[in-house]
């Protein structure tokens, strides 16, 4: 079990952190969230061009870096800490699904690795796939009520129910019969859409099986947990820094036990959260048998810890934390959006109970 970053992984962290602090500091995040697209395409291009992040876990033969989840977790932690808007997580989710196919789709993987294609992934969607013509084409029907970056993705990957079991279908987002409706999101830094398919033509990706799709869902849970770790860490860093400069009653507020002890408890959550994420990423890379329970553990622990720390960070800022101009609410909202992104928290808890055979 590897729970400590290697020197190379620490270098990757520094590279991503350095890039984001220059290209997407919080004022830029605010500008992006108020823009029409909700993110800065130039930053996303550079993220993929200079750092190759969209292709990080894409195998080298398809133009990616062929890195593991330990590395992906490092990158997502940083994009989470920066509250990076845009399609990085959603496209990564699609890449995760694509890498679980027994026959990889060269075209899509290559497009994602190059940063040319943005995508979104709807796991276990409830959409049905009619496959009457039997030539690998499908007609999708149904609704994905909340799809991360569903509005700006080029390609939608939908895990749909077909007569012979679940399939993974690629749909052109702008294709016939696809209706995408922007949702008003609590988290202004990342958008979601309601997507309705009405006999929409799609391509059934070959080599999808139940086990691979289940593994894709677990891997996505680990990826989101890594982002949550970054949101948690940044929320804590912000309030620790503030408590060292804010004065009340002639003392720095960090010297009061009422503040200090809360920050200590938040630090304890960070330590455990990082340990859980490193472990879950390790199971993704090295211990497939442990992955399902580790993924559920990661969602149960990180979802709560990240939201609680973001909430307490906001509260400890005092009244300023309640203002729109302060960034604390952006972390609070991202934390809640992430906590329920893959379903209500009870779903992860129930899954963990099932896996533990309780």
């Amino acid at each position, binding site marked *: 079990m590897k*729970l400590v970053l290697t020197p190379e992984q620490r270098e990757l962290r520094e590279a991503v952190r350095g890039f984001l602090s220059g290209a997407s500091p919080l004022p830029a995040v605010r500008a992006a969230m108020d823009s029409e697209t909700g993110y800065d395409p130039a930053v996303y291009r550079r993220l993929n061009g200079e750092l190759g992040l969209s292709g990080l876990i894409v195998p080298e033969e398809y133009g990616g870096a062929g890195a593991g989840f330990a590395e992906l977790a490092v990158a997502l932690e940083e994009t989470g800490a920066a509250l990076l808007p845009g399609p990085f997580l959603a496209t990564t989710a699609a890449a995760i699904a694509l890498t679980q196919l027994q026959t990889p789709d060269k075209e899509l993987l290559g497009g994602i690795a190059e940063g040319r294609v943005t995508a979104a992934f709807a796991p276990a969607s409830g959409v049905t796939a009619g496959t009457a013509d039997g030539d690998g084409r499908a007609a999708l029907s149904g609704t994905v009520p909340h799809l991360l970056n569903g509005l700006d993705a080029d390609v939608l990957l939908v895990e749909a129910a077909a007569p012979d079991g679940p399939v993974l279908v690629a749909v052109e987002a702008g294709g016939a019969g696809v209706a995408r409706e922007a949702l008003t999101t609590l988290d202004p830094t990342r958008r979601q859409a309601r997507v309705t398919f009405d006999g929409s033509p799609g391509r059934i990706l070959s080599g999808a099986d139940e086990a691979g799709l289940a593994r894709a869902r677990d891997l996505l849970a680990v990826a989101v947990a890594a982002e949550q770790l970054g949101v948690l860490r940044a929320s804590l860093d912000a309030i*620790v820094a503030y408590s060292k400069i804010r004065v009340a009653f002639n003392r720095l507020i960090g010297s009061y036990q009422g503040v*200090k002890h809360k920050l200590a408890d938040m630090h304890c959550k960070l*330590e455990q959260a990082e340990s859980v994420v490193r472990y879950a990423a390790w199971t993704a890379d090295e211990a497939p048998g442990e992955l399902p329970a580790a993924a559920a553990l990661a969602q149960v622990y990180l979802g709560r810890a990240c939201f609680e720390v973001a909430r307490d960070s906001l509260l400890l800022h005092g009244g300023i934390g309640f203002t729109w101009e302060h960034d604390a609410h952006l972390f609070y909202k991202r934390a809640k959006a992430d906590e329920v992104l893959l379903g209500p928290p009870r779903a992860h808890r129930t899954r963990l109970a099932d896996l533990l055979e309780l």
Partner: protein
Amino acid sequence: MDLEDYRRRARVWLEANAPQARVEGTPDAGGVAAAKAFMAELYDAGYSGITWPAEWGGQGLTQAEERAFAAEAARFTLPTYVFSIGLGMCGPTLVDLGTDEQRRRYVRPLLRGEEIWCQLFSEPGAGSDVAALQTRAVPTDGGWVVDGQKVWTSVAQNADWGLLLTRTDVDVPKHKGLTMFIVDMHAPGVTVRPLRDMTGRAHFNEIFFDGVHIPAENLVGQVGGGWSCAVTTLLHERLSIAGGVGMSGQKDNPVAFEALRESADTGDPLVRDQLVELYVRSRALALFNQRLSQETKAGIFPGARGSAAKLLLAELTLFQADLASSLAGPEAVAHSGAEGDGGARLAHSLALAPAMALGGGTNEIMRNIVGERVLNLPPEPRTDKNVPFKDLKTSGGPAS
């Protein structure tokens, strides 16, 4: 020998030797003799002091071997309780700070269980604020004379040696007038009285020192340097508590997840979710401890972060005893009284649970340490730092 091989051999040895050596609770004289015999076998087999330096009697191996052994040992309840203070605190302090003569004299007998150690820091007037201690050591011919009182001292009734923190100078600020010694617990003037705790048992003692002579060579570190020695000991204490170096695992813990999953009604969705909560907390802390130990191995010193692990363990201990007794219902608080009765074990766990949140530094002290030494938050305003000790307010009697 590769790690798998090492682990396999440890398993074989434990299966052959561990189960017979079982001792329950606070050992009596016969229990101590049996524990010492077991410890000698453990040492001779190469499983005591696995990571300790070979030149002082350890095995000179790595954390990897220690973890491998601990993982196997977790399936047994080893009778190592009376040695836990020596192995977790006193021994590591001597290895870090003792003279070569002291290391030669004390480390091997400690590891082999021939001599039992206790730690003598806390006093009735100096608990969280241990640097406020008042036990005096005054220079005399060839050594020192000690007068005072210590408290909360685990295994003192069985101990041969103690690591003693004293005040040697009242004219300087409190942290600067302390000195550490090795004290012979059988010396004239040492009185050990068992102290009954809330479990009804005597897990620790109060110790009285009346004109006890300590030879000069028993000084640890520098005269006046006792505080930095004590910090070293306390660091080892928190790491050893958090990491469960005591070697006995959770196997027999009636309030741990593994036990509750057998006894609780998981058909009830509320019970099921409470067990998930316990699992998540236990697993998150276990992973944190493993990460700390991997970092140590990689040369990243955990320092005060061990206090975070200790705080989390204290909270988990309270949580799981609370949960287990609530799940059990009335039988947790009223039972037949027979030893080994399920209800008796739950009641004992519940009564014992606060110990972890108090011993080795209260949760509040741990939070101060995490806040100030990990997060580098501004310190508490201190009115005692630059004042001679004799001018300070004290609890439990005058300072000098």
